């Protein structure tokens, strides 16, 4: 468990921190995510993806739940993350990080904003639409094409 922690805690923590903007709350999420894994390792199905990305997604879910002061909405047992390259190695992770930042940086500002609002603020598309004044459909398209752009960056 300590080894898993050493490998993945930074990803889990940084996602939670970015979402919550509070180190104490981010620590709580970190603790909760790893404890959940400890209590019930069967939650994660290694045949359907790798652990690092899965933890990242779970961490985000938990952090958003915390942000919105709501009960956990997603049963983490249902979460399957299909993601080939694991983020286990430091070097791989650093390379992947660069790629993601590069991809986000090259997106149109409005698309990146929509994606980040959905991802880090846990806002629904209608909330984003309200905030930005853009039509719902546009927001939807931006979010999806943003995610697909990331996928494409890693497809090669």
């Amino acid at each position, binding site marked *: *468990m*300590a080894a898993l*922690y050493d490998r993945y*805690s*930074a*990803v889990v*923590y*940084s*996602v939670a*921190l970015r979402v919550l903007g509070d180190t104490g709350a*981010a*620590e709580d999420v*970190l*603790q909760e995510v*790893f*404890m959940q894994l*400890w*209590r*019930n*390792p*069967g939650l*994660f*199905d*290694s045949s359907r*993806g790798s652990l*690092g*990305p*899965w933890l990242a*997604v779970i961490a985000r879910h938990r952090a*958003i739940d915390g942000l919105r002061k709501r009960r956990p*909405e*997603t049963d983490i047992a249902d*979460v*399957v*993350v*299909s*993601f*080939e390259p694991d*983020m286990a190695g430091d070097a791989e*992770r650093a390379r*992947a*990080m660069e790629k993601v*930042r590069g991809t*986000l940086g090259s997106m149109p500002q409005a698309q990146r904003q929509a*994606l980040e609002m959905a*991802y880090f603020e*846990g806002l*629904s*598309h*209608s909330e*984003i639409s309200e905030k930005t004044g853009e039509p719902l459909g546009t927001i*939807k*398209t931006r*979010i*999806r094409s943003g*995610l*697909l752009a*990331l*996928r494409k*960056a890693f497809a090669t």
Partner: protein
Amino acid sequence: MSVHEQFAEDLALYALGALQGEERVSLEKHLEGCAGCRRELDQLRGDMALMALSTAGPVPPRRARQRLIEAVAREPRRSAAPAERRWWTLVPWVAAAALAAGLVALWLQNSDLQQRMAGLQDQSAQQLAELQRAREVVSTLTATDAMRVTLVAAKTPPQPQGKAIYVRDRSSLIFLASNLLPLPAQKAYELWLIPTSGAPIPAGVFKPDAHGSAVVVNPPLPPGVQAKAFAITVEPEAGSAAPTLPIVMVGAGE
């Protein structure tokens, strides 16, 4: 994905947890029956994980690690169903197995040492027994109260006899004599080792007992001398460096 283009955008929102209300309900209904969309959902979550990487940088404080380790120590984990077992659930088992292997190695080492010790004890006991036997042999040979009988052909008058047993490599010599004639006063018998070349070597001075018996055990001898014969002369009690003729008894090696 292309088959269900109408759901594609909703799927991305759903993956992000940003889809609400009616749309969410209808998508979930659709997902139940559509493996293609479920796969796409998994994919989108992978894409989301990539988003997480854009935040990477801050690391949790050290105390968070300690806190987790303490919490883990306090809480026994629920055992996962075997089918659901993942590699890290094996970590404690691997650790236990490694420990067990270590114990087995120690145990083997220990039993090896014990065996070797037992071996040494056996060896030591064996040596003790051999020593005991040797002592018995020697004490029997040298005992003053031993009955010494020389058997000869019937109706043959007793003759002075000597038997020398010599092991050259060990320079070990045992000499037994019987029916020796009594000696004049101030005289003793002296045993000589006659080498294949060179002068006779003194091999012990002795006096027979009242029955004419005598024993010489391991007199001091130079090492590795090839013996041709053994002889006995009568010498002064202190012994001589060279035999004084005549030779009273002699025997050659075979």
